[in-house]
């Protein structure tokens, strides 16, 4: 009888974030204009509480049997997998808010809307990672998308920001259409929208019905799956659905770009893995070659385009596409699912730390109105601002994948999954793509350390405490995940194991 109350209890972190968003929105309306700077701090509270709850829930399961609960029938799943991704979203959001505190004030952005929308977006991400049913997945996807469309254009005074928002919205609406159409076709073919049942209690799920009715070559189902992949690939910034990425990432306010590149992508991959490894695991032979091609295209194109960029923000946007390609390699390794899922989660966390960290340095070096973001602006940074340069160097070599950083182990586990699944070709492409990426990552380091300019020519940097904290947290995460990966990796593996369905 009390199941429904308990079910609501499983959603504690989501509800905390949702109520926090409402609180920020209301507070903004009743605070005098001058006091609105507290809103960023207020937004950190629900994020911190939710992160604490999630970490405690994960901690309680470490060592013991992992817990898996169905919420609201089988619409949502509260499992270590969703908890693990919640950590990624919340860390990305907390870092994102820390980056925003000074920025929102300096650029005179509407603080209430800004932080409320950030929290709504996090809520959508968390629901997306939990969704085990297609309609729920779609609604979460829309909650996330609508919030981020507005965030991208929240600097209304800047034309590029408005342009980014409009482009993102128009293309995003198109992608949503693909997703809904895919859901309709899959429903038409199977008669259900439930992806799978990890407890094996119900066979009338997409995954169960594919087996039961032998729908392996069903044209309706395959067309639906293809449309679903397109819809999610758009959000994950996968080539050839990436056309919006460079313009939107460059046009959106910097803290929003940082939050988007880490959070939205992680959410898309969380849903992607649940969709493919859960609902459509019995069609692995069909979707694996598709992912193989997408992964190669994404890695090659993302890296090739990043090489040519002179603007660091735009370079990071293209590099973010390349990283989506690395994550796709893990998804393609479906015959080694238990390792692959864990490596997706681990990589999402490492990318969040190093990606947001790099964007944080962009904010530290950047000037008002998003100036000072050319590669040449990093000339001689090390001589004048050694700490900022050292942190940027750390994030760059981590993104490039050097040992003793988080990026190296992230790539290592993805390669491990790829090799176990006998995807030797894909592993080779990943290795070569990484080598290519060294060029544009290390070029930043070269500009900071190896070029000489008169000291007066190096512009002053922002010394806001919030920025410093964000950089320090990101740098610590990069080092910690690179040197002591065992805890995070154990959690990731546990998450991978619970996603694997026992039955249908």
């Amino acid at each position, binding site marked *: 009888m009390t199941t*429904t109350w308990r079910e*609501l209890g499983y959603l504690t972190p989501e509800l905390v974030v949702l109520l926090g968003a409402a609180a920020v929105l209301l507070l903004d309306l009743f605070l005098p204009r001058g006091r609105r700077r507290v809103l960023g701090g207020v937004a950190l509270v629900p994020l911190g509480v939710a992160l604490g709850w999630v970490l405690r829930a994960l901690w309680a399961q470490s060592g013991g049997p992992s817990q898996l609960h169905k919420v609201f*029938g089988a619409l949502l799943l509260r499992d270590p997998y969703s908890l693990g991704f919640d950590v990624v979203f919340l860390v990305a959001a907390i870092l994102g808010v820390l980056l925003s505190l000074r920025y929102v004030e300096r650029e005179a952005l509407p603080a209430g809307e800004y932080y409320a929308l950030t929290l709504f977006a996090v809520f959508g991400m968390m629901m997306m990672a939990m969704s085990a049913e297609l309609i729920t997945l779609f609604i979460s996807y829309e909650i996330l998308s609508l919030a981020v469309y507005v965030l991208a254009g929240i600097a209304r005074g800047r034309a590029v920001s408005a342009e980014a928002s409009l482009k993102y919205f128009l293309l995003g609406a198109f992608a949503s259409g693909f997703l809904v159409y895919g859901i309709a076709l899959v429903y038409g073919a199977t*008669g*259900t*929208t439930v992806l799978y049942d990890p407890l094996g209690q119900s066979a009338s799920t997409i995954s169960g019905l594919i087996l039961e009715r032998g729908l392996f070559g069903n044209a309706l189902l395959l067309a639906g799956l293809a449309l679903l992949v397109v819809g999610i690939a758009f959000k994950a910034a996968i080539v050839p659905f990436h056309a919006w990425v460079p313009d939107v990432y460059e046009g959106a306010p910097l803290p929003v770009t940082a939050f988007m590149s880490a959070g939205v992508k992680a959410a898309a991959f969380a849903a992607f893995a649940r969709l493919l490894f859960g609902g459509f695991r019995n069609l692995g032979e069909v979707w694996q070659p598709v992912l193989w091609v997408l992964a190669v295209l994404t890695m090659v194109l993302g890296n090739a385009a990043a090489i040519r960029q002179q603007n660091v923000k735009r370079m990071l946007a293209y590099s973010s596409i390349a990283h989506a390609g690395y994550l796709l390699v893990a998804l393609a390794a479906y015959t080694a699912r238990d390792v692959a899922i864990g490596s997706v989660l681990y990589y999402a966390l490492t990318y969040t730390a190093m990606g947001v960290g790099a964007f944080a340095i962009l904010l530290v070096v950047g000037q008002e109105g998003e100036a000072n973001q050319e590669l040449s602006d990093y000339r001689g940074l090390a001589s004048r601002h050694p700490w900022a340069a050292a942190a940027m160097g750390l994030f760059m070599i981590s993104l490039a994948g050097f040992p003793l950083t988080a990026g190296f182990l992230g790539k290592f586990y993805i390669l491990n999954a790829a090799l176990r699944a006998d995807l030797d070709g894909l592993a080779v492409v990943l290795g070569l793509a990484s080598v290519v990426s060294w060029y544009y990552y290390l070029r930043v380091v070269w500009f900071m350390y190896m070029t000489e300019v008169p000291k007066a020519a190096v512009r002053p940097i922002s010394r806001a405490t919030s920025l410093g904290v964000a950089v320090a947290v990101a740098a610590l995460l990069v080092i910690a995940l690179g040197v002591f990966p065992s805890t995070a990796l154990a959690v990731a593996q546990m998450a991978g194991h619970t996603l694997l369905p026992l039955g249908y």
Partner: protein
Amino acid sequence: MPTLTTPIPANPAADWLPVAVFLVTAVLFAAVLLWIPRLIAPRHPTPDKARPYECGERVSGEFWQQIHIGYYLFALVFIIFDVEVVFLWPYVRVLGGRLIPQGLGLFVFFDLLLFVGILVVALVYAWRKGVLRWE
């Protein structure tokens, strides 16, 4: 365990028969209704009768004019409550009817409160932003 499953009929095309019947009926119904007055109603048009009806007021101005943006915002706020009613009714009928006898009345109450609360937040937001003020 409730799932969203419906049984698949042996012949999916048969499923569409009611839809086809419905479509044909709808078209016929509208056509017949338009046709009957033509047949039996007397018609004596005068200039006054031919004027568009504006709730009994005298028609003023052109129709092709700019419309105050306030209408649009009002319409948006109206939709919030429209959707609210549309959602609350089936919720109370279907879920409430099943859950309240199980002693989950309080749960239903708080569940709805959460939903209405979110809408209230939206209304308060609109109110403080001056959407409800007509200028």
